[in-house]
């Protein structure tokens, strides 16, 4: 039968002595734990083994002899070692011998075949297995409780063998606590015989760890209690704490430190490893943070950082402003919706101005803030990086504001579903010009989107749907009365808020503006052929400043389409005005016509006084009655006086009828 002898590698160079260990009869294995050296007193050796057995519950015994012949072979030693077998009887008796300068070993295991002391002994074959005692002890492999239950008997025996070996070594820690410097009765050789594996620093740290951990645990508990205080719970603060990554990191660091300095002992190796890993990660983080801090404090880098911040911010703001100016013009040659561009552009410019003001306001304090925040690097590099992240977030807060505005807009006004060929892709805001004249007033079908921009306007606003290739709005089914073409903000404001503006209808009040469509949603207003003159004349005659003038001249209604001389409205199933429900007093639809040529160049009030508002025939009559001097044609110059307008000639092309010159106005604030 083969006997397995597990021998520690640390004892391979030990002096001659006795082998002390445990015999595992199930696996026919002898686990050698240590070597007892000469000289010794057998009684003291037995006492030591009894103490170890009592403390560790491991059946340690003297297993045999170990002979390391460093010098010439001594026959007396051999006899002496053989005689020891009678003192420390053990079956089988292991005899290991190593020759000087030789790699081969002699291993012998003798077993008596009978109970009698003189019974013949038989030798078993010995298999010597070296094991690293330190690694086996520290790794604590194969604890018996963790072994899975096996069903096959042979597997159980074999698996239990190694587990029993490792467990024997792990449980015999008591035997390894004495080293050669101890003044004990017995001199042992094992993995810690050269000195218990620990440095003075480690020992001192172990002694000091208790009170230090207690103190740190108390301080951390105070910090935790302070952070859980009610003062920090009210809504703005709790929201801020939840959003700042610095607070998150500090909270995490507090948890880690609480785990590390906990006064409770780790319950198992897993928890111990977790503690150790946490401690190492915290120390590493702190070391990196201190490195960063030392680098920042060198060469006054805080001041350089603070000085560099403001020019960089100014440069960014300048570039953004250039970009916005470009977008507000005709970017890449695209024709945009100018009114919308202006609104958005000024909106963003204003916020950039706020942002730059905020940074300039903070600039004197940035260096001090950075210096104090840099001290937080002592808590770790992660804390410093989280502070940096928060600083960047605060410096770029404007982006978040834009995001919130846009998100609110989209959330409040989800885009409508696409409707056939005439619908364009939904968007949160107006899509203008670049798509060949598509206009989009507001995304909400009931037109309430624009009211968000002009909340003070109580009148409902119609949304407009895009119509391809024509700058004509096709508003959604009418719910309100105001039909609006997105134009300059000021212009729109005037259209909305002018007190003289009839609230009952606002049909052709602006060029390109038409009454609300029929319920079928067809395009309203005159046909394309007559659109141009109608628009211009309507603009002339129905312009808010002109309305009081007209009223002063006796006209009570604003002309509209359908008047004499204009083409009849389209048939009901096409371009028919919708059921425009005028409120208040019923007013006839506006009638538009062209002013006579003689009045071109005059300011509107003067033109009105000279009958520009009159029909052509009446005007001819009037002209004939008018006395010298005839009206002088004013040069088409910018003769604007406080909001008055000029009539300028505009030739649109010959027609069968009398040649008429289309007049347009130079508006003081321009289209």
């Amino acid at each position, binding site marked *: 039968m083969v006997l397995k002898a597990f021998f520690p590698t640390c004892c391979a160079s030990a002096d001659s002595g006795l082998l002390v260990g445990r015999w595992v009869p199930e696996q026919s294995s002898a686990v050698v734990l240590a070597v007892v050296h000469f000289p010794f007193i057998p009684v003291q050796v037995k006492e030591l083994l009894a103490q170890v057995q009592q403390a560790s519950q491991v059946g340690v015994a003297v297993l045999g002899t170990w002979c390391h012949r460093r010098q010439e072979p001594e026959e007396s030693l051999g006899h002496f070692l053989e005689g020891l077998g009678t003192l420390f009887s053990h079956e089988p008796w292991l005899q290991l011998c190593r020759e000087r300068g030789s790699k*081969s070993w002699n291993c012998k295991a003798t077993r008596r075949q009978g109970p009698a002391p003189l019974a013949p002994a038989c030798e078993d*074959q010995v298999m010597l297995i070296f094991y690293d005692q330190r690694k086996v002890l520290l790794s604590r492999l194969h604890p018996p409780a963790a072994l899975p239950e096996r069903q096959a008997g042979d597997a159980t025996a074999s698996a239990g063998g*190694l587990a029993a070996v490792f467990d024997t070594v792990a449980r015999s820690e008591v035997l390894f606590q004495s080293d050669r410097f101890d003044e004990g009765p017995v001199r042992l050789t094992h993995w810690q015989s050269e000195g218990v594996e620990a440095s003075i620093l480690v020992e001192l740290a172990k002694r000091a760890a208790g009170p230090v951990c207690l103190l740190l645990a108390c301080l951390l508990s105070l910090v935790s209690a302070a952070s859980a205080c009610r003062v920090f719970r009210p809504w703005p603060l709790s929201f801020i704490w939840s959003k700042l990554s610095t607070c998150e990191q500090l909270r995490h660091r507090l948890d880690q430190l609480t785990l590390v300095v906990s006064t409770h002992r780790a319950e198992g190796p897993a928890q111990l490893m977790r503690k150790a890993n946490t401690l190492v990660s915290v120390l590493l983080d702190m070391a990196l943070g201190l490195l960063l801090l030392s680098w920042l404090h060198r060469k006054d880098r805080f001041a350089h950082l603070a000085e560099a911040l403001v020019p960089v911010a100014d440069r960014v703001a300048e570039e953004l402003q250039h970009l916005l100016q470009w977008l507000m013009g005709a970017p890449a040659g695209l024709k945009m919706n100018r009114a919308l561009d202006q609104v958005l552009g000024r909106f963003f410019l204003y916020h950039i101005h706020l942002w730059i003001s905020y940074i300039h306001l903070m600039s004197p304090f940035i260096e001090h803030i950075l210096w104090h925040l840099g001290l937080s690097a002592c808590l770790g590099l992660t804390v410093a990086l989280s502070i940096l992240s928060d600083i960047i977030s605060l410096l770029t807060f404007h982006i978040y504001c834009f995001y919130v505005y846009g998100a609110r807009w989209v959330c409040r006004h989800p885009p409508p579903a696409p409707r056939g060929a005439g619908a364009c892709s939904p968007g949160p805001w107006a899509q203008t010009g670049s798509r060949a004249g598509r206009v989009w007033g507001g995304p909400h079908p009931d037109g309430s989107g624009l009211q968000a921009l002009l909340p003070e306007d109580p009148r409902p606003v119609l949304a407009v749907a895009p119509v391809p290739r024509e700058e004509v709005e096709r508003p959604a089914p009418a719910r309100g009365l105001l039909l609006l073409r997105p134009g300059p903000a000021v212009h729109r404001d005037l259209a909305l808020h002018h007190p003289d503006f009839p609230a009952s209808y606002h049909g052709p009040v602006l060029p390109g503006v038409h009454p609300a469509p029929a319920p079928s949603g067809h395009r309203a207003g005159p046909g394309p052929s007559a659109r141009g003159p109608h628009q211009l004349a309507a603009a002339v005659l129905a312009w808010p400043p002109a309305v009081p003038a007209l009223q002063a001249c006796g006209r009570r209604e604003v002309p509209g389409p359908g008047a004499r001389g204009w083409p009849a409205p389209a048939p009901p199933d096409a371009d028919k005005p919708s059921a425009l429900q005028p409120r208040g007093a019923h007013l006839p639809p506006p009638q538009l016509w062209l002013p006579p040529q003689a009045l071109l160049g005059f300011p509107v009030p003067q033109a009105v006084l000279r009958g520009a508002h009159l029909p052509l025939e009446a005007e001819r009559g009037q002209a004939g009655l008018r006395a010298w001097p005839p009206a002088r044609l004013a040069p088409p110059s910018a003769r604007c006086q406080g909001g008055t307008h000029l009539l300028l000639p505009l030739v649109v092309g010959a027609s069968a009828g009398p040649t008429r010159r289309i007049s347009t106005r130079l508006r003081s604030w321009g289209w």
Partner: protein
Amino acid sequence: MAGPGAGEPAMEDKRSFSDICGGRLALHRRYYSPSCLEFCLSCPRISLRSLTAVTCTVWLAAYGLFTLCENSMILSAAIFITLLGLLGYLHFVKIDHETLLIIDSLGIQMTSSYASGKESTTFIEMGKVKDVIINEAIYMQKVIYYLCILLKDPVEPHGISQVVPIFQSAKPRLDCLIEVYRSCQEILAHQKAASMSP
């Protein structure tokens, strides 16, 4: 973990085989006892010709870069890269010997000895070993044979939890594998017989 056997000298024999690429392999078999056997497969050492070819290629490429960039640092870098690459290859890649030690009552130990002297050892308890087999595998454009150890599944008694291949670096051919396989099967049978007996 396991060390040399005690007492009697082991019987040893040596035979030559070839690997899947045609290189020469030397199989040393040491017979310690009916229950303990060791196989050592020696791979061909790194040849001077291949080393020279690689070095010349790297240096020629570096010289070509040097003529383009006119920077002598490229040549120094090429020398460093060659030296470091050689050291890394010898330490991490090139395996000189692969040893298989099988002890019926203990387990199977596989040792890989690198050209730099580093040794990597893996030990499998005999209780976890289900069987040692020769398996086929598709390797690039070839079908090769390899020896592997089947490990028992602790949950499923008839299942296999893992397949551990042996001699992955040497990749001997079937004739060499059969020699090793037969010896392993003898020892496993001996071990099963010993465990079955009361």
